[in-house]
Structure formats: C-alpha cells, structure tokens
C-alpha cells in the first residue's frame, strides 16, 4: 500500500472507531512496531540519502497525523463516555430539599421584631418590664390615682391589693425614668398586657404592646409626629401617611390617636376603613408634666413624648388576620402562613 492510501485508511478507521477497544485495535494495526507504517520506516535504509530524507519525512508526517487523530478520538470518546455516565447519574431536582428552611412563626413575633428593629435604628434601647406590676407603677406613677375614671377603661386583674397584671406597658416609663435619674431617656418596651375582657373576635384578656418613651429638653409634638411617621412608613410602606387626632390618656397631654392611611383605598374611604380612609394604630402624646413630676423630673426643664402600639392591632392590619384569638391558638397551619422575616 502506498503511504497516502495507508494514512487515509488509518484515519478512516479512527473516525469509525466506536469505543476504546476499537481504538486499541486500530493503534495496534497502524502504530505498533509491526505495523505497515513502521515497516515502511524500516525499509528506508534501502533507499538513497535524498529519497530517504523525502520519504522519511512523509512517513513521519503520516504517522504524526494518525497519532494526533488517534489522541483526539481517544479524548472525544473519553468525554463522551463520561457524559454518558453523568447522564445516567441524573437526579430529580423537584424532590424536596433537606429541611434547614425557616418555619412559620407567630405573626405577633414578626411584627414585634420588625418594630424593635426600626426603633433600634432610631437609637432607642429595649427596656423590659414585668407582667406582674405594682399598683404604684401601673397606675399612680402614670397619673392614674385611685378612683380615676381611667381605671374603668382598663379593668384590671389583681393578685392582691398592691400587685396586679400590668394593664399597659406604660409602667416601663416609670421604671426607665427612675433608672435614668432625671436624665434623658429613649426606650421602647415590648411586653404582654392584661385586661379583664372576654376573649372574642376583637378582644383578648392578654395582648402585646410596645411602649415608647423619649425624654429630653425641648421635645415637642412635631418630634412625635415625625418619629411615628418614620416608623409607620418603615413598617407599612412609604406610601402610607399618618394622621393625628386629639385623644385622652392620663399620662400624656396633649394626647393623640394616630391613624394610618388605609392601604386598600389610600385614604379615600372604603369598607375596610369604614369610609374614613384611615385606620387606628396607636395612641401617643406629650408626656404629661404631672407624670414628669411624679417621676422626679422638672417639667420646666424636661419634656418628652410617649406612645403605645398594640401588636395584635398592627398584625391584624398588616396581615389581614380575622380573629385575634388565632394569635393565641397557634394552629400550625396558621403559623405556616408567616415565613418571611
């Protein structure tokens, strides 16, 4: 066979090779010591120098081409086989992932954490009160003396004459003021509160509040408004607006009810907000000078603002929960609805 023919034959065979066995046979046939091409190389010695050079080069070139083709084919086959193997190892990616995912949680905690986060960002500290309080802190220091009509507003669970379950988180104000020794205060106090209510769709004998108190020099109603507006926009979204309405709490004067614009109608009025365009979310006000005095501050020097946020109320507005009792029933199906943090 002449060299060109041999080369073509070898290259064709390599091209046709199906697997590594084929390839090995081809190598044995075309590239082994006994192969035709190597024999041709052996035959070079019979040629004259010039012929030998020319012919030798041609043989080496043919052998190089075959070797290259062989190596390439070998790599291709290897890659092909690996691919086949990987294909066989394919898994069903739609099966469930291993459970390190977050579970649902009680939405009251979600709201609580979010509010704490917002106020930490505004430089507040978290002050913790106690479920069991004294009459003195819960009422007297909050400017609600014995026989004050406001005591009717918050019918109280008593343990004895002086101990009770706090009816609001406001006693934390008095504790925080006592600890600040007449200096500035900037705290929020999350906590459970208790009132003698029958549990129904909208009432609960236990509920959660976050109290806020800021005391410093020259604090005014505008400071309160901006603080609460900042809070509401962070919690409910930038589009929401707040509105203040005159109200009454014994521990603030002036007192305001703060409403947030209805997200359903944007303040125009709809069934969700009963046509008012706004939804009640919290009570607030300028700290009553009498409360400052009762807690060791000079109201001529210091002023402040306070607010109280009902967490159930916020959670109901934020998530559209239909029954306050759901927060305390802890049905796993309910908790599973609240996964986002």
């Amino acid at each position: 066979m002449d060299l060109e023919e041999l080369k073509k034959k070898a290259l064709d065979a390599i091209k046709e090779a199906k697997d590594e066995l084929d390839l090995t046979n081809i190598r044995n046939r075309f590239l082994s010591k006994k192969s035709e091409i190597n024999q041709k190389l052996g035959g070079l010695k019979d040629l004259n120098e010039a012929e030998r050079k020319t012919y030798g080069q041609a043989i080496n070139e043919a052998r190089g081409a075959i070797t290259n083709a062989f190596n390439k084919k070998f790599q291709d086959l290897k890659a092909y086989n690996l691919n086949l193997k990987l294909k066989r190892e394919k898994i069903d990616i739609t099966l469930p992932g291993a459970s390190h995912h977050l579970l649902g949680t009680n939405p009251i905690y979600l709201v609580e954490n979010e509010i704490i986060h917002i106020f930490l960002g505004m430089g507040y500290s978290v002050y913790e009160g106690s479920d069991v309080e004294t009459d003195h802190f819960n009422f007297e220091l909050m400017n609600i003396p014995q026989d004050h009509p406001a005591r009717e507003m918050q019918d109280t669970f008593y343990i004895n004459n002086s101990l009770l379950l706090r009816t609001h988180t406001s006693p934390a104000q008095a504790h925080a003021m006592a600890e600040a020794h007449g200096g500035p205060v900037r705290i929020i106090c999350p906590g459970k509160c208790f009132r003698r209510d029958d549990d129904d769709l909208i009432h609960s004998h236990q509920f959660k509040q976050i109290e806020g108190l800021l005391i410093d020099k020259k604090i005014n109603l505008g400071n309160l408004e901006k603080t609460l507006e900042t809070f509401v926009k962070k919690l409910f979204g930038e589009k929401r607006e707040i509105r203040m309405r005159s109200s009454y709490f014994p521990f603030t004067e002036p007192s305001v009810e703060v409403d947030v614009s209805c997200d359903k109608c944007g303040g125009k009025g709809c069934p969700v907000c009963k046509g008012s365009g706004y939804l009640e979310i919290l009570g607030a006000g300028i700290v009553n000078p009498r409360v400052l005095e009762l807690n060791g501050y000079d109201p001529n020097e210091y002023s402040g603002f306070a607010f109280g946020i009902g967490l159930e109320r916020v959670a109901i507005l934020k998530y559209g929960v239909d029954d306050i009792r759901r927060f305390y029933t802890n049905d796993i199906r309910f908790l599973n609805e609240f996964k986002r943090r």
Partner: protein
Amino acid sequence: MLVSYNWLNEYIDLSDLTPTEVAKRLTAGGVEVETVTKLSKATNLVVGYVKECDLVKDTHLSLCQIDLGPKHGVKQIICGAPNVRKGLKVIVALPGASLPGGEIKVAKIHGYDSNGMCCSLLELGVDVKYVDQIDLTGIHELSDEFKVGDEDVLKHLGLDDTILNLKLLANRPDLLSLYNVAKELATLLNKKVKPLKVNTIKGDKTDFVVKSESDKCPQFSARVIKGITVKDSPIEIRKHLIAMGVRPINNIVDIGNYVMLLTGQPLHMYDLDKLPKNELIVKDDIETSFKALDDNTYPIRKGDLVVTSDNHPMCLAGIMGGSESSDSTTTKNIVIEVANFNGATIRRTSTYLNLISESSIRYTHGINDQQYVDVINLATNLVKQYCGASSISEIVTYDKLKHQPNKIKADAKKINEILGTNYPISKITNTLKRAYFKISDIKGSKFTATAPVHRIDIDGVNDLAEEVVRILGYQDVKSELPTIANIVGALNDKQHKERTIKHLLDATLYQVLTYVLVNEKRSKEFTYLNQATPYKLINPMTDDHAYVRPSLVPSLLDVVSYNLAHQNKDFGIYEISDINVNEKKESYLAIALTGDEKLQGELHKASYSFYSLKGYLESIMALLGISKNRYQLREWNLGGEELHPGRSATINLGRELIGYLGELHPSVYQTYGIKNNKVYVLELNLSALYNLATGAEKFKTISRFPVVTRDLALMMNEDVKSDQVINLIKRSGGSLIKSVEVFDVYKDETMANQKSVAVKIVLAKDDATLKDEETNATIEKIKAALLKENITIR
C-alpha cells in the same frame, strides 16, 4: 353617648352640613363618633284612614279600604293586625316602601289585591324598648291630630332623627350633655350656639329642709312643687328621650331625664307625700338595706351616700331612687333634687352593687358644679308647662362648694414649644376664646386663661396646648425628628443572647405565643423549676385564666394537643417567656416535640427523641459559650408521674437545677387529651444562663501535622454510659487523644446484659507527625484500661 341630631339643631345651626360631615369634624377634634344612624330608615309612608274593614272569611285577616288622601286615593289593603278597625288612623307603607324588614310590594293575599301595609312602630325600626303593648301585637294607632295623606308621618312622630353615637374620652364628661355637645360643635366649626333660655322662678317660702352630713356631698338643692298631674309626656319630650336612648315613663320622670340629657346634671324627683319628714338629708354612715326603683333590694354599707328623710333611706344617692319615695301615677306634690355627689364614692357604690344608671355615669365622670340653680329652674319651667303646678317653692340649698374660677397662667411661647408650632399669641387666645375660655392679663407672650365652668378637665398649660391644636388641626405642627442627647440604642447582652437563641430555634421549631394565665390544674403541673405557690388572681374572668403560670410546659402541651386534634402532626414548638413567681421574674424557654422530624419532607424523616431535645440544649449552650463541663445532665431523680423516669434528665449548673428534658410519662397523655403520639419536652431557665460569665474566645494555631484515626468495637455491660467509656479512653490515652466519638451502639437478645459500642478515636501530636509505634502503644494502653473495667474489644 347617643346624641339626637334634631335636638342639636335646636341649639346650633347645622343646616349647611350633613350629619356625616358633623361626625367627621367631631372625630377630628377628639370627640370620636362611632356611628351615624337614622332612628327609622323607613321610606314611602303616608297617614291613612280606615274607611271599611271586613274580616276575610276563615282567616284572621281584614280586608280594608283605606283613604290615603287626595294624592294616593283610596287603596285596598289586607291587614293581619287584631286592632285594625273602621275609623282608625294608621301608618301605611306604600308599595316601594323600604322598611327594616324588606321592601313593600303589591301582593295578592287570599285572592285579594293588597296595595301596601299598615305598620306598627316596630316595623318602622323603632327599638322594642320604646314601643307599647299595642305596637307589639298590632299596628300603631295614630292620634286624631294626624292628617290623612300626610307623608311626613315620621317627622310628626318624632322618628325622623339621626343619631350620633359618641365614644367619649374619660376627660370629657362635659359631653354627657347635649347642650355641651352643641357648644363643642360651635367651637370646632367656629359657629355660635343659641343660649339656653332659663326663666328664673323665685318661688314661695318653704319649711322644707335640706342638708348634707357628708363631705362627699358638698351641695344639695331642692324645690317643692305642688298640685301636679302625672301623665304621659308630650311628643316634644318623648322624641328626644327616645333618640337619646332613654325610655319615656311619665311626664315627671321624663322631665328629670330630659333636663339631665340637656345639661349633664342628674336630677331626682321625690313624691313629697311619701317622705316621712319635710326634709332630705344626705348621709354616708348608715348600714341598712334599700329597695330601689328596679324593685331589687340593695345592701347599703358605711361610706355609701344615701339621701334620707327622718333617718330612712329615700334614694341611693346619684344612682337610683327608692321604690317607696319616688313619684308614681298618683303623685300630686313633688320635690326636685339637684345635688353634687362625689364621683369616686358613687363609682365605688355603683361598682359594688353592679348598678349603673345614666345618673351614676355622670357623677362618676364628674359634673359641672356651677349650674345647679339653672338646672332646677329649667326643670321647674317644664313641670309648670306640662304637669301643671299650683305652687312652686323657693330653692332650698346646702352649698359648701368653693365657687372659684379656674384660672391658668399661660405663655404662648410655652404652648408653641409643646406643639412645635409658631402661632402668634393672638391666634392662640382667639382659639381659646372659641372654646369659651376667658382671656385676661395679656403681657407680651403671657396671659391668663379662665376655663369655662363645664370644662372640669382643664388644669394646666398642656391642656391649653391641646385645646389649640385640636381646634386648629395638626397641619401647622412642624414635623421633625428629635435631636437627642448623647445616648445610643442597642440590644443589651441578655437581649442579644435571646435573639441568637431564637434565630437558632426558628430554623426547625415553630415559635408560639400562649396565655400567661392558666387554670388551677395547669398551675400545678411541671413545676420542677418553681416550687413556690403561683400567683392567684383575686378577680379572674374565668377559672380557665385564674393563675399566673409557674411553668411554660403545660401551655405548650395544650398547643400540641390542639394541633394533634386538628390533623397537624410531626412538629416542634417553642416559646420564650417570662415566668413570674415569688416576686421574681425570670426568662424561660420551653420546647415540645412530637412525631417525626422531617429531614427531607416525607422522604427522609426521623422520629423526635430525647436526643433531639438534647441537641437543642447543646446548641444553645454552645451559642452562649457555655462549655460542656460547666453544666450537667443528670438522670431523672425528681419522681412524679409527668416525665418518663428512664428517658428524662435534669439540667444542672452545679447544685442549681436550671432545667429538665425528657419524654412524657405515659400517664400524662390522657390529661392533655393526646393519643398515640409521643411527646418530648424541655424547660430551661434562660436567666440562669444569661447570668453566667463566659470567657472571650481566643485563636489557637491549627496543627499542621496529620491525624490518625482508629476505630474500636467494645463489648460492655448495658448500664455503662457512653460518657464513662469516652472519659476512660481520654484519661488512659493521654495527650495524644484529640477526640473520641461513639459511632454505633448495638444490642440484641443474644447479648444478654451486654451491649456493643463502637468508638472512633482521633490521635495526633501537636509538634510532630505521629509514628505508628506511638499510636499502637497508646491504643494498647487504652485497651488495658478498658479491660480493667470489664470492657472488652470485639
């Protein structure tokens, strides 16, 4: 407080506004209007005259021909009422009329066309408490004054009113008076009220005596009126009472209520002839019983205010009159009482007796003490007009009140400082004048404001600031964040630790929120960490919520039970909450696990076990930097039948018990209504952990020399604990042992009281590569030590 819109219009011109607009303005000004409703929503009504009325055979129905006046003519109507009869004037709802019960249509009844319906007041939507017997069983019978064809029948019945339901704040008792509501509206709307015209009657001399022997009644006035006739009140009075939610009784009682609703001052009417003596004396030191107007007998304690005559109680002061001395249909001569009783005292008595009246509500919240003469005269005039009066006495009065005006020294600068506004002083004083304050002594920014007598809530500059801002609105308040002294906010160490623990647990457990108040039974369960008696409420709402819980575990078990009963299986829950016992407050964690832990949904799950709980405990300790040698798990030694004695443990910090964990005892499941599910619980006093001092973590060089691993399979008595084996290996192996871990525990019935435990031992040297000879020598030492303890190598 229900407010009649028609009555309001008698004192302030609201014709340019709708009731809803008025309600909005009130609400914005701090007087929240909860609802605006029509007294009767009925439409398309007309006065009819029954011309013919014949019974339809074999029915209770009457076939009537009713004259509806020139516009509507005579219409045939079938009526089922027993009192329908020829010659009666009736209210007819025409076809198309909308009544609370539905729309009226032309109908065919028993073959006869019926072109409308004869109505009772009940059918027009009037509350059942205001209608009499006739309207309950039949149709309303109109008096002769009504004109046939009159379409304004609701108006003439006084039923065309709109009712504003005010939710009053505790500081505005003055608004328990219709006239003061009118004044409030005048303030907010910048309008004028019509003056309350009081015709002062001097009256004749009387020997009737009034007196107070209690400092809780500083003022008591009375007037005797003789020769009156008790009968029904005229419609002008009845309609206002009905609109304001008060049931009309008779002219005398109604006049008392009418004047009270108008002025906010309660009155009481006595039958002069039933008083044992010509006197009324207020006392607060008698103990007796008292039969009130509602026919109930109430105990009177020392401290309760009573109005007496000849030492007999005539009236439970400020709350309710007596059944014997109050006026009745036969009353001829009356005594009108207008007094000032201490609110706190009335509140205490009223709460104790569980007896609340329109009168007690007003005293409890506080009354305007400067208007009693006007109030008596208002009532006198009405009695004269509607009940006849042959003689009217002078007003006899006991009065120890200080009649001093409420003057407040104010500064416009201070008011602007409170509000964050920049109002000129004139704007502030003019606004206060709108609210009936008198302004005097203006000097620079300073002035004196005298509060109107009805505003008993005003007592300082902050109140003035509130008046200004609620009248002018909040738009001028400059909204800006406070600039604050040098304090920074952050979570403290304890709060940070709690947050970290929650992050850990939230990944695999549901965080629940449960009630702090539990029933007596639950208050006694799982009290291992708190042996002290739990707090008990003296006034619980229900037995179910009467004790402050000393343990979180019963609450979690109730949640587990609820969920298992609602087809929720396979879950873990936790709660972190304060526990209050014995005047101390500590933060607790409880965990409850049941069913399987879903490692990969249903594909790969593992039953929760003791070790799941232990894992949570170890992770929490690691998070808080509390190393394993600082706390101990001890086998259950607390007895009881709540936890499985062989699968539970206590958690100790030295001698201190800080928690426990384990499988529930079989006898507990029934208590909680849990069937066919094992439950594992943990309770841990986190405060005890937060208080532990923990050292700072410091970097140690990572060894660059390789480690050697050897596995050993060991046979030992089944009672030997894995910790004992590990400690033995560590002790005997010395410093080359880097870690020892159990990787298999096996036991079957062929092994008698033995078990097989396989351990993986990791050895290394910190300063050189470990040689085979060293490893082997160490393992031989370990084997020898194990053998000494009867632990053999398999």
